[in-house]
């Protein structure tokens, strides 16, 4: 079977679900963050595949912006995690229950 858009989309979907699973199952803030990156990358793959098969470069520009914003997001997020760790000495979501009723 010739590899087409469907194949790339399915790879992207599986990768996205892996990331989602990581966010739901893992309890470490950093690993959750890495899983988020995995989900972003899955979306990027879908966008590049659509862009290629529709002969339209707009999707690739979109991915360029996503990568830029993800870099900014990672820097802010990691700074937040470090600040949190400094205050609470933990990077574990189960220990962070200040907002729990």
């Amino acid at each position: 079977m010739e590899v087409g858009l469907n194949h790339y989309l399915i790879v992207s979907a599986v990768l996205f679900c892996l990331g989602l699973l990581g966010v739901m199952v893992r309890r470490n803030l950093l690993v959750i963050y890495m899983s988020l990156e995995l989900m972003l990358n899955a979306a990027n793959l879908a966008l590049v595949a659509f862009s290629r098969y529709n002969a339209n470069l707009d999707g690739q520009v979109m991915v360029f912006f996503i990568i830029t914003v993800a870099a900014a997001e990672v820097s802010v997020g990691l700074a937040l995690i470090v600040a949190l760790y400094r205050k609470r000495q933990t990077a574990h979501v189960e220990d962070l229950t200040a907002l729990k009723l």
Partner: protein
Amino acid sequence: MHMTDLIFYLFAALTLLSGFLVVANPFTRNPVTSAMFLVLTIVWLAGLFVMLEAYFLAAIQILVYAGAVMVLFLFVIMLLDLKEEQRRHYRKLLTGMSVVAVGALLGLIVKAIRASDVGAGLATPMVRGDTKPLGTLLFTDYLLPFEMVSVLLLVAMIGVILLSKRELK
């Protein structure tokens, strides 16, 4: 079967395998291992981008993601003491329920992709994501978003500096 199809299946399998090992490594729960497998996932994804002829994005993916972002990740992992992670137990019920929910979502998406058959009728047109066409597009149609992203990066930088100060006044 074409050679390119074989390479696609190889890259796809490697991407998914490394992605799985980021999330659920059966041997260790060390965040450093997860980060290393995330680097591998990103590298294989760059390979898939090359297969899709998005050469510029493949380069950016390696440079920015595997280079800058993951170094930042590793730096923070080394900074924090994460021995704790190894000792924790996961709640079995929660894990099982998450797996079922995500599996259902995956089934739904795959079924939707198969049913809609989005790839049908699309040949393999020649659109190459080289630097030149992307750059042209970036500095004509997408000039305003490009400038906004530069402001965003500045804001993020200031935010990070503020957040990493010891005392917030």
